[in-house]
């Protein structure tokens, strides 16, 4: 699976969602390169459990750098179907590729129409430049 930032939808708080062009209704969720760059020196990530239900905008985990702890928010509502548990032990890979390799959770969406309310790449980029 190759995910590039142009194909993604974003929250203001720097989480991205990717939905494959199929009928699975599964969103892959991660954090943007901009967020990884801002956080720097990641040391810890807390992930939800498979089966946990999430609401769009609710906290699904946290990422911690040497300096601070930041919550991660879900761009969509649904149920966690998979977590990238191997990522926790190689957080440095987020600095290399926060998209394909750096996915964090997969969520079976309960309301795919929420995707329309997220930022597209252009709008997100613009927000980051402020």
């Amino acid at each position, binding site marked *: 699976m190759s995910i590039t930032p142009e194909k993604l939808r974003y929250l203001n708080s720097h989480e991205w969602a990717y939905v494959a062009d199929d009928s699975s209704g599964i969103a892959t969720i991660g954090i943007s390169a901009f967020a990884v760059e801002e956080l*720097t*020196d990641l*040391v*810890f990530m*807390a992930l939800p459990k498979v089966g946990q239900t999430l609401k769009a905008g609710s906290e699904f985990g*946290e990422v*911690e*750098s*040497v*300096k601070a*702890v930041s919550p991660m928010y879900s761009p969509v509502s649904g149920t966690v179907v998979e977590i990238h548990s191997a990522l926790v032990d190689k957080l440095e890979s987020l600095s290399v590729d926060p998209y394909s390799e750096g996915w964090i959770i997969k969520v079976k969406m309960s309301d795919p129409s929420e995707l329309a309310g997220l930022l597209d790449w252009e709008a997100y980029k613009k927000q980051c430049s402020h």
Partner: protein
Amino acid sequence: MSSQLAATPLHAWHQAHGARMAEFANYEMPIQYSGIVAEHLATRNAIGVFDISHMGRLRFDGPRADQLLDHLLTRRVVDMQTGQVRYSLVCNEEGGILDDVLVSCLESPSGKNYFLLVVNASNRAKIVQWLKPHLADFPDVEFHDVTDATAMIAVQGPKAIEACKPLLPASALTLGYYRAKVTEQMSKPCIVSRTGYTGEDGLELIMKAEDAPRVWENIMMAGREMGVRAVGLGARDTLRLEAGMPLYGHELDESIDPYQAGLGFACNLKDRIFVGKESLEQKSKDQTLPKRVGLVLEGRRAARQGANVLDADSRIVGQVTSGSFSPTLDKPIAMAYLAPEAAVLGMALDIDIRGTKVSASVVPLPFYKKSSQS
């Protein structure tokens, strides 16, 4: 808001070199340049250069300056020799800590002794205000807040002295630990002291504000081949935490006394009278108060200021005052104030990190000591 923030004489350099700037004690200060871990490790392994111009610099002139300061500081001042530096506390009448300071006894180029007090940026206004009535009692002492007219640069790390060679006379490079002198850098006046806030060897330099950019550039240039890095306040905090050094607003405040903080060495109670002495005599015998300890945590997650520390029965026995992931030890560390029964080396405890219990144990401070070879 940002227009009201003060800028140090090195502000333009920080901005030009990609620093992330943030407010600290009403200054816009560099928090990090390349990243906290890289800057931290550069200081441990080579050289870190810090703009600490925000620290308050207060000068006291006159033959009775030593007596005034002896009356205000917990540490004896009247017996200080020219060139000595001492760590001291400033306490209120109740024995609560108003600030922690470095006091230096210096000799001006004209041959007169004077004292320099370096205070925390966040406490400068409070201390200056608090000094006023005491200054009135010593009308022959001349007091100047020279913070704005000067800048302060710390050069820290095993290669710090070497990096300063092109700038400073040999006599400044051979100063003993906690020694200082008024000297010159490239024929401009400069105070050099063998002190720091990182747990490494190094120097702290005070110069005229307008000379600071050139001094900074010269150090960066001299240290280039040795792995020098500019270091922001982020790594300054992780370095001092590893070195077990308290930070005002975290480990120290007016509700804490020096003995709880493990800083009894900075209080000379014998044969002198100073502000807070009577209270401190009582407090020096009080074994019931929470004590400052070091904690090492399991896992990767750091405890931050305010996290509760719990005993085996899940009772709250204290709070974390500073915590971070330690880049040198590669694990999370913290300082905390714990009830005496829990403040015991080796004690196994839990820390409540946002609802999750993380195991921790009490360890000796400092967490990090530089090797004697370096």
